């Protein structure tokens, strides 16, 4: 904290710094000094080279833009808050932290700010004409309104076919035109990071009628975009000249709706955010709530959280591995691994009650204790899985065709991976040894033994190899959890309608896709004031987008597959 103060003083930035227990050092700087402060913090000996998250909080009078930074070198967290008036201009920091590219667009549109200095300052999640949803003044539909389905009249034939198109956007005067090159608005950056070629020019700016190139629209309905991702590719032959990811086809306001849910019910929304690994999202929220409310979680509950989390991690990695096989054209891996996933879902249903939307981890512990039948099923599964995982390894990873398809494709070096805010297996595939389970232990992970697989190459194959090894490690942890499950309560005593004191906290877990964080602001009522969901898949997506130029269509499919995108999480 004192270091941060010194750095900011040297850069002549006026800042007030306080330490929030569950968050780290919080610096508040003025909006004119924000870029200077961030550059200073990045290049100083504090070396905060990693933007964890960027989001806004509507305080009622203004919008606080929060830059959550991390220094891997000093293992420190730092939060920079900048106040912006409604409708004011948010100056882009993407040239300082490329990870800010998409979160900035999202924050600007959802809080009704203007975006300056951004290479692609368009709406990200919503269509033109949508109000800034995350403003506190905008209220969601009331109970009466949602019960009355008939009230919403839509003439299906008159649907605007261009809704969701890229025309328009933030076309206010003074802001760069959509697709305008970055060079038009030069921003002095002291240490430029490697700028990916694709960012210079977005394909939506290409004049299709008069171009020699083919502009291909991949998605939102496409067999291998894993949901409703839309990629606009500018092609020269089959080679991608530039590519742009368009998202928001699944934007359903999880962050907004959480503000009107009780603390015990927010988990139901988070389950549907990252819908293949619901336990992790629930856990991140529970951790944040427990930090604010100061709840001590029983040991057995921690073990159960780990157990279910790791089961869920295998299930989630399977939904990556199978479709990864499909993307590369192999049908077998998909069906062989889904056999295992069925077993896992069976176990999860036995313990939690549902196959995918568990609503199981709550602030204070877990809802139900483990059943005896589930225990037997887990043991049987582990024996079976040990055989299957080796088979799967050989089936795809050992296959020369798959190797030829994936090795050397979509390489992120260490710098780029950190710059784009990659976390999880994508980051470890690029040689950064960082795992929240080990480096910021939560639940019972400090008592479990496991290895963190790391690969140096940074290509698609490396990411696949890391994930496969993670499955083995998860199986190892599940065995430890089930053997060493301590006696005791499965939940702490928590009020039925939880009202944590006013405060702010950040809870992060290592979800199968990376660092899944929940930044929670409480105001003392029974529902959160603001809940920010840090989506690791969004950061993976923008990194993947930047990697598109120079690849072939087939590579693009494999690259996006290897980033393990879940669009529910990307769009929220």
């Amino acid at each position: 904290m004192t270091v941060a103060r010194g750095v900011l003083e040297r850069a002549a930035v006026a800042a007030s710094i306080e330490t929030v227990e569950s968050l780290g050092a919080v610096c508040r700087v003025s909006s004119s000094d924000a870029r200077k402060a961030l550059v200073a913090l990045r290049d100083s000996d504090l070396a905060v080279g990693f933007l964890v998250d960027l989001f806004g909080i509507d305080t009622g009078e203004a919008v606080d833009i929060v830059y959550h930074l991390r220094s891997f070198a000093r293992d420190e967290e730092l939060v920079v808050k900048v106040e912006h008036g409604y409708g004011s201009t948010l100056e882009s920091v993407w040239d300082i932290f490329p990870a800010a590219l998409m979160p900035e667009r999202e924050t600007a549109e959802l809080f009704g700010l203007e975006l300056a200095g951004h290479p692609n300052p368009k709406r990200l999640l919503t269509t033109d004409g949508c109000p800034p949803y995350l403003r506190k003044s905008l209220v969601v539909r009331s109970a009466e309104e949602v019960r009355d389905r008939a009230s919403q009249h839509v003439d299906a034939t008159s649907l605007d076919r261009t809704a969701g198109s890229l025309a328009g956007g933030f076309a206010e005067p003074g802001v760069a035109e959509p697709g305008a090159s970055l060079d038009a608005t030069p921003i002095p950056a002291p240490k430029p990071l490697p700028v990916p070629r694709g960012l210079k020019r977005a394909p939506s700016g290409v004049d299709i009628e008069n171009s020699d190139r083919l502009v291909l629209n991949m998605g939102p309905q496409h067999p291998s975009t894993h949901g409703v991702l839309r990629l606009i590719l500018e092609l020269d032959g089959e080679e991608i000249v530039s590519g742009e990811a368009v998202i928001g086809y699944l934007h359903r306001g999880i962050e907004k709706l959480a503000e009107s849910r009780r603390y015990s019910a927010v988990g139901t929304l988070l389950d549907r955010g990252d819908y293949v690994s619901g336990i992790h999202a629930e856990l991140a929220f529970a951790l944040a709530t427990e930090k604010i409310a100061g709840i001590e979680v029983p040991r057995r509950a921690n073990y159960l959280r780990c157990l279910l989390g790791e089961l869920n991690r295998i299930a989630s990695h399977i939904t990556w591995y199978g479709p990864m096989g499909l993307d590369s054209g192999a049908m077998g891996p998909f069906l062989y691994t889904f056999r295992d996933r069925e077993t896992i879902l069976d176990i999860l249903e036995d313990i939690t009650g549902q196959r995918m939307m568990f609503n199981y981890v709550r602030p204070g512990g877990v809802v139900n204790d483990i059943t005896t039948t589930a225990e037997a099923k887990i043991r049987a599964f582990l024996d079976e899985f040990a055989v299957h995982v080796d088979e799967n390894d050989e089936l795809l990873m050992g296959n020369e065709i798959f190797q030829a398809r994936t090795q050397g494709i979509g390489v992120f070096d260490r710098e780029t991976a950190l710059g784009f805010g990659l976390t999880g297996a994508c980051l470890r595939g690029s040689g950064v040894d960082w795992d929240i389970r080990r480096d910021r232990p939560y639940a019972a992970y400090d008592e479990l033994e496991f290895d963190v697989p790391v690969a140096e190459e940074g290509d698609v194959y490396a990411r696949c190899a890391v994930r496969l090894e993670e499955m083995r490690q998860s199986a190892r942890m599940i065995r430890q959890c089930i053997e060493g499950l301590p006696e005791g309560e499965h939940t702490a005593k928590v009020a039925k309608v939880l009202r944590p004191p006013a405060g702010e906290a950040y809870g992060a877990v290592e979800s199968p896709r990376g660092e899944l964080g929940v930044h929670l602001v409480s105001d003392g009522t029974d529902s959160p004031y603001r809940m920010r969901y840090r989506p690791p898949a969004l950061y993976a997506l923008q990194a993947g987008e930047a990697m598109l130029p120079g690849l072939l269509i087939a590579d693009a499919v494999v690259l996006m597959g290897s980033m393990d995108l879940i669009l529910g999480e990307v769009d929220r």
Partner: protein
Amino acid sequence: MKIYGSGILKSMRIAFRNMMREPITVQYPHEKVELPERARWAVAMNYDEQGDTKCTGCIACERACPDYIIKIELTTAEDRSKHIDHWRYEIGACMMCGLCVEACPYDAILMSHEYELARTDPSLLSIELLTDVPAAAITRRTSAAVPAMPAEPPTAPEGGAADA
């Protein structure tokens, strides 16, 4: 030395090995998977031995539901006994999270194992579980016998932080 193509042959071997394994398919309409006890599907009414509803009309479930899918319409008589006119359940929007069952202090509703819910008529997306029945008296509480269910009435622990 690794011969190019050996990986491909190994893949084929694994495929054929799997071919020898028994299919795990459950032929659904003809045979069904047994659901675990905790499985949560459509909300159903729990009745006591006489076949009367246990619902007292306390609307704890209606308030606990995050989706506003439960709507209980009550009329209160002069002797403060309640009469349930409609117990509306909008099955088409239910996410089967079980929060209503957790909230119910009288064990009056449960998550059934009924998952064959498909219907062709949109008006059936909203159904009534109870129509025009007298509500159970508050004195007949059965929750003490079911330790898994939280025992307090929903209005009791308002306020207070986690330590309450």
